[in-house]
């Protein structure tokens, strides 16, 4: 972007942020783990030693062995293979939910911040959405749409909208007062042009930070919905649903519920570390 207009420039601030990010060890751990997870999701069929949904009753309820590194479940399915395939589901769920939250939330936030007439109705709607604890809102939406992984994504995505709307709105409110916006308007730029070219790029860093942290929340929320029986259904190798299936065997075979739960833990931790690192790198003022 052109520096003369006073808005964010790709050079200076960006490379500073990048330098801060790669010096942050925790963020780098999160980043590399995320990369590993993405690769695992992409090449799941090649990595997983067995078919994730193939029932093999002769080998059911085994603890970790050389043949089944993470053991088998009550249907003799290889837990490692299910977890590897589950990476695809969890990352997809996270990306789609956050995509919905980001897309809808940012649009509403831009409109609310930029057009005074729309501010009150949008803010009021967000206040109503925020009056539901997020998981409860997701549950309400699943109640309406019916259980299932796709509806769970929509539900979690809608639950994420208010945070993005609020963030964008408050960024817009401060950005619109800047001289470069005034200047663009004086030069005859239309509102949509001002929003897309000047306002939106300047909301970029807080949105990236919130987006990354929301991935963690979204994956966790979707896993919870599946655990409750409101998201993915068996035999889909979704981690929350796998933990729910292991619930009945918790007394003697705690590994069935534990390994998928640990997988959720690792993914959520990665995105939390990466999100924290991005926040410190892109907006050092927020650092404690």
């Amino acid at each position, binding site marked *: 972007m052109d520096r003369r207009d006073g808005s964010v420039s790709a050079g200076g601030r960006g490379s500073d942020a990048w330098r801060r990010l790669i010096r942050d060890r925790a963020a780098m751990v999160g980043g590399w783990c995320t990369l590993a997870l993405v690769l695992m999701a992409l090449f799941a069929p090649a990595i997983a030693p067995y078919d994730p949904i193939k029932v093999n009753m002769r080998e059911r309820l085994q603890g970790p062995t050389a043949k089944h590194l993470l053991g088998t479940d009550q249907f003799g399915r290889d837990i490692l293979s299910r977890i590897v395939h589950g990476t695809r589901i969890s990352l997809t769920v996270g990306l789609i939910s956050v995509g919905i939250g980001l897309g809808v939330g940012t649009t509403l936030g831009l409109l609310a911040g930029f057009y005074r007439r729309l501010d009150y109705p949008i803010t009021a709607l967000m206040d109503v959405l925020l009056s539901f604890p997020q998981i*409860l809102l997701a549950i*309400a939406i699943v109640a309406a749409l019916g259980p299932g992984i796709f509806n769970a994504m929509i539900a979690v995505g809608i639950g994420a909208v208010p945070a993005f709307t609020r963030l964008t709105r408050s960024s817009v409110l401060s950005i619109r007062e800047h001289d470069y916006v005034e200047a663009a308007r004086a030069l005859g730029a239309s509102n949509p042009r001002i929003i897309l070219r000047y306002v939106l790029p300047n909301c970029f860093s807080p949105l990236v930070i919130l987006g990354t942290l929301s991935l963690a929340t979204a994956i966790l929320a979707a896993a*919870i919905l599946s655990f409750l029986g409101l998201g993915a259904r068996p035999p889909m190798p979704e981690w929350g649903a796998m933990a729910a299936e292991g619930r009945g065997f918790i*007394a003697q075979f705690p590994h069935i*519920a534990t390994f998928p739960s640990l997988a959720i*833990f690792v993914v959520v931790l990665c995105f939390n570390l990466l999100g924290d690192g991005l926040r410190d790198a892109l907006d050092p003022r927020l650092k*404690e």
Partner: protein
Amino acid sequence: MGVYVLRRVLLTVPTILGTSVLVFLILHLAPGDPAMIVAGPTAPPDVVANIRTHLGLDQPVLVQYWRYISNALRGDLGRSILTRRSVSEEVATAFLNTFELVIAARIWSLLVAIPIGVVAAVKRQSIFDKLSMVTALLGLSLPIFWIGLMAIWLFAFQLGWFPISGRGGPIWSADGLRHLILPALTLGGIQIPALARLTRSSVLEALGQDYVRTARAKGLAERLVVAKHALKNALLPVVTIVGLQFAGLLGGAVVTETIFSWPGLGRLAVTAILTRDFPVVQGTILVAAVTFVTINLLVDLVYAVLDPRIKYT
């Protein structure tokens, strides 16, 4: 102050109304005909039509909403499709159970998190600080259902200290308490990391203020500086988060109650969704949301009392 309180209370009314509209609309725009669900899949069309008239489903949506909300204001949330019991009664019983669980969880999480946060801040960069904050970061990423399942595995199956699930006797009885402990440990446990981290950063900020330096400069013992000057101011944001975390507690209660078969609002809602018992779904979600809005209101008011600088603008 009086004006602030009044305005803040009045502002809650549209939010609650909006919430009720949303809950009503979500379930009314949902695919599937409630009359068919009540009648069952094999019911003849005229029976379904009768039920539809009886439930008022043939009226315009606005009329239906008006009827719903005016009944709700009188405490009538309709009847469960499944049990035919009054939804208000089912919700009230469940509400009390959730309330007990949430309060117990809240108390124990505060008892653990605040001391950890304060000590971590006062002994900044010490082993304790680093260890507790790393643990907190790890804890933030743990799925709550796993904590619950592990609590059951360890304390119920391996050690046999507590029952696996259920409500037991009333809360004041030994049996009731024994049943409460594991769910409360789980639900409170999941809140500790965030609370400890927040307490730590809040105390750190307070310790950096001028008045703390002044207190130190006049020779006050460090313990008194922390307790009398820093803590008092540091706890203000903690109060907010304690209130806001009720969202997390209510959400977590859904999972905790499901794992431990605790007969609260969350379990009622999930069971009702899975059995498509719409009046119960509507009632539980509405009550939960209104409770949440009310708690937020109380938090704001407490905040205004604690910090006289706050004025409504």
